[in-house]
Every structure is written in C-alpha cells, then in structure tokens.
C-alpha cells in the first residue's frame, strides 16, 4: 500500500511537470468537446430555422399549367424560380433540394374536378439535409388541396366535416429536458471516450515510456511489488482521465451559459447532483480505460507500438452509440451490464433528469467493477513478463 502511494505520487508529479501533456489533457480536450457540440448544435439550429422559415427557392416545372397554385405558393414565402432542363438530374446533383413538377394535364383535370397531378421531386438518400424542406413543400401542397377541397364541398352544399371522419391530435409527454437533439446523442459518446482514453498519455508514458527511457528495470529491482507499481500507474492514469472529464464538463456548462437562448432551451442543464451521478456512472469506464491502457503499454514493445493501438480503443466507446442509432431500443436490465452501452443509457437517463433505480446502479457498477478486476489481473500478468524490463 505504501509503495502504491509513493509510485502514484511520483507518477502524478512527473505527469504534471510535462507541460504539453497537461495542456492537451486539461485545455485542448475539454475545449474541443463544447466546441464540437456547440458548433454542431448552432449549425443545426440555423439550418433548421432556414429550412422552415427562410424564403425557399423552388423551381417549378410546368408552372404555366397551374398559374393559381403557383401564385398561391408565391404568397407563402416561396420564390418561384425557372425550372432546370432535367429536374431529376438537378436534384440528384444537389443543386436544389426540391423541384415541383406540374403535370401538363393539370388544367384539364382541375376543370373536370378530377385529382390534378403534381410531383414533388426530391432525393430520399439525404433525409437529414433535405427532409425539412420536402416536408414544408408537401405541407403547403396539402394545405392548398384541403382549402380548395373545402371550398368545393361548400359550393355543393355539403359540410366540410363530412370529409374528415377522424380528428387526430398528438401530445408529447417527454419532459422538456428529454427533447432529443444531436447534442445529447454526442455527449454520452464524448464523455465515455474521454473517460476511457483521457489518461492515455500518462499510461503510455508511465510504462512504455518508462521502459524506453530505461528506468523500469531499476524500478522493478526495488522491493516494491509489481502489483503495487502497476496499480499506482493505473490510478495515476485514472486521475488524469477524471480530471480531463471534469474539465470537459465544466467547459461544457460554461459554454451552455454563454450560448444563445434558443440553443440553451434545446439543450439541458446539469445540476450538481446530476454531475455527481455522471461521475459515478463513468467511474468504472475511467478505471477500465486506465487498466487497459496500462496493460497495453506493458504488452507493446515500444512507445510507438503502444500508440498504434489507440485507434482501436477510440472505436470501442462508439459501438453502443452506433447500435442505438441504428436500432433504438428501450433500456433493458441486461444492457446496463454491457460496458459502454450501459453507461451510455445511464448518462442519457441522467441528462433527461430521469430517476436511476438502485438495481440499475447495482447492475452497472457491479458489472463495471468485475470487468476492471479482470482487466487488472490481465495487466498484472503482463507486468510479470520477464521481457517487460529486460528488453535489451
């Protein structure tokens, strides 16, 4: 225990004296996250507002067949522009999000009281970029259709309600904090990522670096047990990762406070209790990351080789987020035992101000600690290899 404390103190002193390491861990990384989140949120909000409220430039093919419809559209904040020669190609090439095509039989059908044909041409492979615009054009056309239909019924002496046997209303019961946006999708991943590999510099430096600088052999020749040495190096890594996460959360809160009002509303606030809950949720991931990184640094033959494994580790926390994006499912108890996936779900619950039940805590923390123990046993085994210190 005493040796553990001595090594931990030395590793932290050593790490904190490395100015570049401190700068990256406590300034660059924490600032990167709010910038990414704030940037995407602001960009998304602006784009969204533009698509819904800005003047839409809409090319109309065959505008001459339906002058009234076109004139009505022009009153709805839509600027009618000359159509391209090949509408399909134009949309596919992303020159316009939507092109409206009016059938050449439109006037004839209209006068005959038959449904007159119009076509909304769009590219369904880009739902995020163009979905709102397509919906806006559709909505306008539906509105026009309904208005004219109502007028036609009234002209024939029929109550318009006859054509609406159903009245469908919707009510969103989600708490205001639970309104889901991109920011909330990204935050759990970024938090887990930082928790997992936030201490990578320390881990690699303290084992692979120590070996490369040839100070590991004398260290292992002291009475300190290897278990104590590796545990101290893992803890130093974990401390660094936790500090990185803390700085990130602080920077994120500050950035929320200075963001424009409508963005703040779309996001959420993190109170002190929620902050503590977040720490508790990610603690196993912090320890797991520190242990895996230290084990990897002991396994690798050089500093460079150890760094080579990092892309692999970057990918791990991404997996549950990807799974949830493809197949959003309700939280089930077994999921909480799956590393990253469970933490991802719990972070979302915290962010949505949802209560986390004691059993949920128990499953998540229990599974996390069990995994850390297994990783520690593997890492300690790696630390006992003869070639660890005696590399030359």
């Amino acid at each position: 225990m005493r040796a553990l404390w001595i090594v931990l103190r030395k590793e932290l002193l050593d790490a904190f004296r490395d100015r570049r390491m401190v700068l990256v861990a406590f300034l660059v990384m924490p600032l990167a996250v709010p910038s990414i989140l704030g940037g995407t949120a602001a960009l998304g909000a602006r784009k969204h507002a533009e698509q819904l409220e800005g003047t839409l430039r809409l090319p109309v093919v065959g505008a001459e067949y339906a002058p009234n419809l076109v004139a009505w559209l022009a009153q709805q904040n839509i600027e009618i522009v000359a159509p391209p020669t090949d509408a399909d190609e134009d949309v596919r090439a992303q020159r316009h999000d939507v092109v409206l095509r009016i059938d050449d039989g439109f006037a004839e059908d209209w006068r005959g009281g038959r449904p007159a044909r119009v076509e909304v041409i769009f590219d369904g492979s880009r739902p995020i970029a163009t979905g709102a615009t397509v919906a806006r054009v559709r909505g306008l056309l539906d509105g026009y259709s309904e208005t004219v239909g109502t007028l036609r019924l009234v002209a024939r002496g029929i109550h318009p309600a006859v054509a609406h046997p159903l009245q469908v209303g919707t009510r969103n019961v989600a708490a205001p904090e639970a309104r889901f946006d991109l920011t909330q999708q990204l935050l759990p991943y970024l938090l887990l990522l930082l928790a997992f590999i936030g201490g990578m510099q320390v881990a690699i430096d303290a084992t692979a670096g120590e070996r490369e600088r040839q100070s590991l052999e004398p260290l292992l020749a002291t009475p300190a047990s290897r278990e104590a040495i590796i545990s101290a190096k893992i803890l130093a890594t974990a401390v660094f990762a936790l500090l990185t996460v803390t700085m990130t959360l602080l920077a994120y809160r500050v950035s929320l406070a200075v963001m424009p009002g409508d963005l703040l509303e779309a996001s959420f606030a993190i109170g002190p209790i929620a902050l503590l809950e977040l720490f508790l949720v990610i603690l196993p991931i912090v320890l797991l990351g520190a242990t895996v990184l230290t084990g990897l640094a002991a396994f690798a033959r050089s500093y460079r080789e150890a760094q080579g494994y990092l892309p692999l580790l970057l990918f791990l926390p991404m997996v549950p987020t990807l799974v949830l994006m493809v197949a959003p499912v309700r939280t089930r108890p077994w999921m909480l035992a799956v590393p990253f996936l469970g933490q991802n779900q719990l972070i979302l619950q915290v962010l949505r101000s949802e209560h986390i039940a004691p059993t949920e805590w128990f499953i998540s923390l229990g599974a996390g600690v069990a995994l850390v123990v297994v990783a520690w046993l593997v890492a300690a085994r790696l630390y006992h290899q003869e070639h660890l210190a005696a590399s030359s």
Partner: protein
Amino acid sequence: MIRVEGLRKSFRTRNGVVHAVDGVDFEAADGRITGLLGPNGAGKTTTLRMLYTLMAPDAGRVLVDGLDPATHPARVRASLGVLPDARGIYKRLTARENVAYFGALHGLDTHTIAERTERLCQALDMHEFIDRRAEGFSQGQRTKTAIARSLVHDPRNVVLDEPSNGLDVMTTRGLRDFLLQLRNEGRCVLFSSHIMQEVARLCDHIVVIAHGRVVASGSPDELRAGTGCANLEDAFVKVIGSEEGLYA
C-alpha cells in the same frame, strides 16, 4: 555475500534457443570486490538480472545473504543495491527527487533519505547538479544519479552492471575510489565489466565468463599463475579462447 550455483538461462529467439547462461558458479564475499569479466554477450547481464530477481533461472540458484530470490524476492531486493545496465533516470525530476523516490520505495523516511542523499552527494561529488532537473544531464551526471539512487538504502550488497560504461576518465577514477570505499566498509561489491584493465586494477577476485560459462576464477595473481602468463591481458585471452568482443 552473494552465492551463485549452477545457474542456467536460455532464451527462445527466432533463430533457435540461445543458452545465455550455461552453468555459472561463483561466490562474492563481503569486504571484497568481485569482478565479472567477459566479452560482450558472455552472459554477464543475464546472470546479474537473475541475481536481482528480474529473471527467474531455468536451473541452479542464487543466494543473497543466504536468501533465495525465488522465495524471498522482496527481502533480496531490499538487501541489494543495483545499478542495472539500464540506468535511465526521470528527466522531469531533479537528481535529488530521483534518489528520494527510490529511498521511499525502499521504505526509508524523509529524514533518513535526506541524510543518505547528503552522504552520497559528498562521495560522488554531485553537489553541482543535485537540485537540477535531470533533463540534459551528461552521461556522467546520469550515472552518478543512478548510482546514488541504487545505494540510498545503504545495502550490504552492491551489484553494478558495467558501471564505467560511457564515463570519462575523471569520473571513472572517482567511481573507482567510491567502490574501494564501499569495500572498505565491509560490503560485498560485485560488478561486471568487459574492460580488463579496470577489473585487474580494482578486483580482489575475478570471475571470467565466456559463452555463458565460468572459464576461470581467482585473484589476479592466481589467474596469472594458473595460465602461466606474466601479463593479465594474455591470461584473459588464453582462458577466453579468443580476443573476440574483448575490446569492444
């Protein structure tokens, strides 16, 4: 006092099995400087590594003050002062902090560490750089710091792997005096070298190793007498069998 009996160690490499140490026996007594002399690749470093518990022997055993490192690794490490072949020190710590770290790991309190550091500082002439960060230290300064940290716990047995490697003449002279001082204090000093002049000058007892085996041992005079050579250098060449690696 260090005893080595029938020590063997082999490594599996891509080109087959290498018998690095192939039956080494010797004894390094207290109050004596024992030199492990042999060309590069003779198995000196591997022998020493088994001695300070970094490697486990395939066969044979080591006894340090009567204790086997295999069964009492922590106690053996506590009674040994080791200057390994790898003598990296922490660049972001000062020389004093480097020494204090190892003192703490040996269980010393801060007062004792300060006292011992002062004594080693005196003996190794480190005052000029003791409170400087090790970044940019010269080879001599690094080696002195490494020696100081390996001796901070005042060990009975001192093991040094090629201690004069990369040192200039003045520092080597200082080191020689320091090793004599350790011997006169009654310690067991064991060091390896491939430089015969150094060994001849310092050692009370010489163990010549070649190809993982002890090929000769004794005092300088005994070695000369045993080979019938008037000159130690000729004696070494004769027992080793070739001059290969001796001048490297």
